[in-house]
């Protein structure tokens, strides 16, 4: 909410009442006070529009090993669901284009194209949109005060998001997401998941904080932060279309999966990187520094990196 409502009331109320009352400086006092109080947040807002390139200095995807749940505070049910996941599910025609949850925009390797839609008469911001990609729906943040829909309303891949400004920070709250994955390798989220997102702009650096809450599969809220850098090259607001095709599985065939206790990849993080099994499985205690004291010193790990060792991926140009 900016100065618009009060300003509008002044403009409309002034002339109409002028014939009966003198609208002098004294009577303007309360209005001026209200205008000042309400106007100040509007001046504090920053422009988020533009193309924000992914620096990819951080690896938030964590999808290079099938059982890598490090850094995800899964509860027991979430862990079992995750271990039952088999990435061959993506070879099923009906699942190839199911996409990822909207918070993948802070996890994936892509940049952000952000734009706003403006109300044509008043000039107020109706919404901000973070552009889509092939496997992620657009992230639309409604700024016009509309309420979240009924809990019975349709859940979509992009969810439903409303936003407001707190100082220079855009705060968004998302509900109505479809069940999916909090990481591409299988850790699940339910359709009761909500997300609070904050956009902090510091000059040419945009840092996004996403806090994901899921009462079904997470033991505590998951926190993710990711930074982007403003760039002059224009990013695409959309990705290529997802086109499903036959990849070896016919519709109606069984869904590829593992018996959770028999997942063949459960030791891979340990053998490849020396990560303890509890950490690879997303035990909540492993997300805190004191867990290091429980780790065996000098855990076995390869002396030299053998996979995913690249020093610097090119910045995203989409």
């Amino acid at each position: 909410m900016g100065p618009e409502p009060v300003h509008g009331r002044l403009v409309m109320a002034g002339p109409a009442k002028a014939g009966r009352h003198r609208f002098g400086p004294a009577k303007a006092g309360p209005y001026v006070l209200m205008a000042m109080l309400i106007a100040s947040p509007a001046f504090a807002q920053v422009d988020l529009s533009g193309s924000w390139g992914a620096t990819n200095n951080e690896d938030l995807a964590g999808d290079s090993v099938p059982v890598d749940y490090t850094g995800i505070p899964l509860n027991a049910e979430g862990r079992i669901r995750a271990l039952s996941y088999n990435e061959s599910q993506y070879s099923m025609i009906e699942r190839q284009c199911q996409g990822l949850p909207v918070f993948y925009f802070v996890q994936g390797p892509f940049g952000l194209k952000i734009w706003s839609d403006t109300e044509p008469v008043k000039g107020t911001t109706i919404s901000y949109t973070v552009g889509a990609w092939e496997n992620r729906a657009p992230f639309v943040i409604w700024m016009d005060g509309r309420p979240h829909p009924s809990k019975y309303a349709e859940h979509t891949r992009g969810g439903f998001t409303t936003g407001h400004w707190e100082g220079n920070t855009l705060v968004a709250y998302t509900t109505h997401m479809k069940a999916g994955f909090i990481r591409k390798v299988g850790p699940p989220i339910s359709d009761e998941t909500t997300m609070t997102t904050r956009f902090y702009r510091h000059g040419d650096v945009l840092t996004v904080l996403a806090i994901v809450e899921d009462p079904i599969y997470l033991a505590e809220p998951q926190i993710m932060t990711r930074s982007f850098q403003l760039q002059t090259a224009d990013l695409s607001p959309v990705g290529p279309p997802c086109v499903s095709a036959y990849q070896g599985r016919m519709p109606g065939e069984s869904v590829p999966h593992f018996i959770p206790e028999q997942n063949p990849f459960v030791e891979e993080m340990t053998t490849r990187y020396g990560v303890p099994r509890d950490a690879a499985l997303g035990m909540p205690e492993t997300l805190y520094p004191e867990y290091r004291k429980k780790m065996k010193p000098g855990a076995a790990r390869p002396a030299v990196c053998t996979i995913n060792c690249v020093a610097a991926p090119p910045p995203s140009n989409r």
Partner: protein
Amino acid sequence: MRRGRAMITVCVALAWWVAPAAAHAQGRGGAAAPPPAARASAPIDLTGYWVAFISEEWRYRMVMPPKGDYRGIPLTPEGTRVANTWDPAAVEPEPCKAYGAPAIMRIPGRVHIVWQDDNTLRLDADAGTQTRVFRFGPAAAPAGPATWQGSSTARWERAGRGAGSLTVVTTNARPGYLRRNGVPYSENATVTEYFDVAPHPAGGQVLIVTTVVEDPRYLQRPYIVSSHFKKEGDGSKWDPSPCTAAW
């Protein structure tokens, strides 16, 4: 009577609006009022105990990455060459090399932030027992030899009443490691950090630190990472430990 009250309202409103700007106004003749102390004018409260929440890059931060694992770091050829000289079997003569200002906020541990005086914010890290000092006011030339935490100047970025962030710029840090497995930063590295806070859904707060490291010698372009911490009610889990290269 009513008119008088309205005029008072207008005056109070104008005073509320104009006062902050007037307080900082200088150079119009006469003695300018000194700017308020950084502590008194803090738009956000960063003080307290904060614990790192290791939900990102676990395998780079909680265990020693293998030699040659430089994923995500935009090293120059010279930086890669130096990193490749790191020997995991050798005894590290300077175990604090991974705890310098460019890397300390990525180390698993707790930080304790307090006001050292009205214009100096101090950040202690229990991992490596390091202390950072953020001085508000005009930047001064680094004095003395380089240290692990370097020389830091700080300023508030205001965003309306009760909102804002802290910007810290650090130079004069001793050369060290951006990542424990020998990824270097040089003595010419500049670290710019932005400190923001947000509410945590379970109560308490989250501290977000965006770190931008620029190093013309070892980095092709800025290395930008963001780390987050959860606020703790007290220091009961504060656990000072010395620097170690055996990770």
